[in-house]
């Protein structure tokens, strides 16, 4: 935010502060380290254009699953409903396509927003821990997707008419990436150019203080969940194109951890207050690189769960640096 505002005065402080931000982001060093390591180990395959494209695609998937929820983590809560939005939203698109035609893809952001709103309202009204609430909602929607698949007796809920979304309009740049750009831009805008970002930070940093400053904390909590759901819904369009015009129909917990790990790796601590989507992008890239590298080593993908778990342990340990001594239930 300050970068924009200082544009007029001098360019030097911008560079300086951006550099300072990068230096303080562990994910940044992790990315550099991993890139150097894999280039040294597998120079041929790592830097090949197909692999770079794979990394880009993986980055898009991870970031689409994590930028939205970052807004919720920012205020110290947690939102893992992104898998539910991704899966059931896809089912809705498939169900509605015969009636709505090509417009039906816009069901995604609307559905995301609705889920976000429900999450926010239920969380604020009942004080149920957001993590439990959103994970249960995710499970409900994920299984609903499978139920729909079973009812209609189909294998996938693919909508072939949207196949054109996959592929590349611009060579070497998958459309998936292009579809993700507006989501990334929007998240940076919400965070840095509206008061929402500031308010969510304030709530995460000191909820009572935010209340004393005259902020309607409950309203902004609901808003935070809504933005999270909306961005995830919008991002799910990119994910929809990534899988070739369909969404997954069975619940895969690996995907859930992907989003969480990217947020934590990026440096938004789970207690909230600091960070933001721009940091999550670094986390998403780092996470993608780790698993891209693992692929290159030729490890049996069935064993990836172990590495996902280890990565998550590492990520939370990195993120806990400043938490020592805080009493957490």
């Amino acid at each position, binding site marked *: 935010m300050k970068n924009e505002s200082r544009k007029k005065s001098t360019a030097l402080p911008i560079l300086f502060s951006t550099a300072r931000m990068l230096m303080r982001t562990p994910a940044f060093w992790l990315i550099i380290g991993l890139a150097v390591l894999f280039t040294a180990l597998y120079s041929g395959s790592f830097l090949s254009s197909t692999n770079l494209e794979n990394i880009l695609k993986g980055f898009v998937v991870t970031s689409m699953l994590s930028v939205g929820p970052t807004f919720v983590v920012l205020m110290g809560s947690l939102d893992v409903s992104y898998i539910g939005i991704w899966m059931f939203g896809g089912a809705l698109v498939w169900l509605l396509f015969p009636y709505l035609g090509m417009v039906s893809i816009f069901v995604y952001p609307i559905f995301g927003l609705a889920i976000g709103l429900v999450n926010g309202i239920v969380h604020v009204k009942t004080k149920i821990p957001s993590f*439990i609430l959103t994970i249960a909602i995710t499970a409900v929607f994920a299984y609903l997707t499978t139920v729909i698949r079973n009812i209609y007796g189909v294998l996938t809920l693919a909508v072939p008419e949207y196949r054109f979304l996959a592929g590349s309009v611009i060579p070497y740049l998958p459309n998936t990436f292009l579809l993700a750009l507006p989501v990334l831009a929007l998240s940076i805008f919400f965070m840095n150019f509206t008061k929402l970002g500031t308010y969510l930070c304030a709530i995460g940093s000191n909820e009572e203080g935010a209340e004393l400053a005259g902020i309607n904390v409950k309203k902004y909590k609901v808003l935070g969940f809504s933005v999270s759901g909306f961005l995830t819904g919008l991002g799910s369009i990119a994910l929809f194109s990534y899988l070739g015009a369909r969404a997954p129909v069975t619940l895969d917990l690996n995907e859930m951890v992907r989003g969480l790990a990217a947020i934590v790796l990026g440096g938004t601590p789970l207690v909230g207050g600091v960070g933001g989507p721009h940091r999550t992008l670094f986390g998403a890239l780092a996470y993608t690189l780790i698993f891209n590298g693992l692929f290159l080593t030729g490890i049996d993908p069935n064993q990836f769960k172990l590495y996902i778990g280890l990565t998550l342990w590492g990520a939370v340990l990195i993120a806990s640096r400043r938490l020592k001594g805080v009493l957490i239930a």
Partner: protein
Amino acid sequence: MARARIRREWLQKNLTTITPITAAIVLMIALRALNPFFLATYESVVTLIYGMSWFLIAACGLTFVILMGSFDFSIPSVLKLSAMLCGVFYPQVGFAVIPLAIMVSLLFGFINGVLLAKFSIPSFMTTLATSFVAEGLAQIISGGYTRILSDPSFTAISITFIPAKFGLPSIFYWAIALWAVGIIVTLITPFGRAVYGIGGNLTGARLAGINITKVRILVFMLSAFFASIAGILYAAQIQGAHMQIGVLDTIPLFASVVVGGTALSGGTGGIHRTLLGVIIIRWLDSGMSMIGVDYNVRMIVFGAIAIIMTIATIDRRRIKIMK
């Protein structure tokens, strides 16, 4: 007037006890109506016991953690890892596999506890990571294949019938014994008091001279221990181990704890209540499968129950800020 008020207060206070009992009775009647053999024949009782015993043990472990105000996602994975360790290594090392499985599980519990108590990382996050590591290990040691364990001396630990004629399988006695141990530990020992204390008022527990670090680590180790025992007994019961064990159990386990009346906010409820929760959830499960409801729909039902019961049991008086 006064009488009505007293009655209302009593009702309010005991609502968390009355509701699950009523639900269990209603459920039993409904299942009986659906299937006249439900709980009517010896076979149906044994089937039900087999379905509930290992589940009860795992749920007791989870109850410990929830009573303390934390959460443990790693229970199904640790359970699976334990079962898998038995399946893979029993042929080589024999009964030494049991202490091995327990030790490995305790290690996971220890890590969960340390990450929470020493590094201040929220428990759902650490246990989620742990569940992946345990799952990954199970995958690696088994190569993803199903292992058969047909050695009668091993399976005997779960399926010996006591008494031999028209008796119940030994896994039932294990489960009841562990449940009873859980009740004793939580309700009448100083350690149990400390667990309730930490769940009720963390700062207060610290100021009252409770070693909160130790208790929290121990509780996570206890939870892993229960999961491990459940896994070993389950492996003996089904005479083998496979990668699908525990995959679908996180939500039903959690649901059975909150249905019993243990609040997610910590400090209220107890292991004695969990038995009712387990009965309700497992009966519901078998009832639904009896009328041919597929597991996806059952999961939706359990997810909804989990949300509703969490909201119903949470102690809103006490919570100022809930993340």
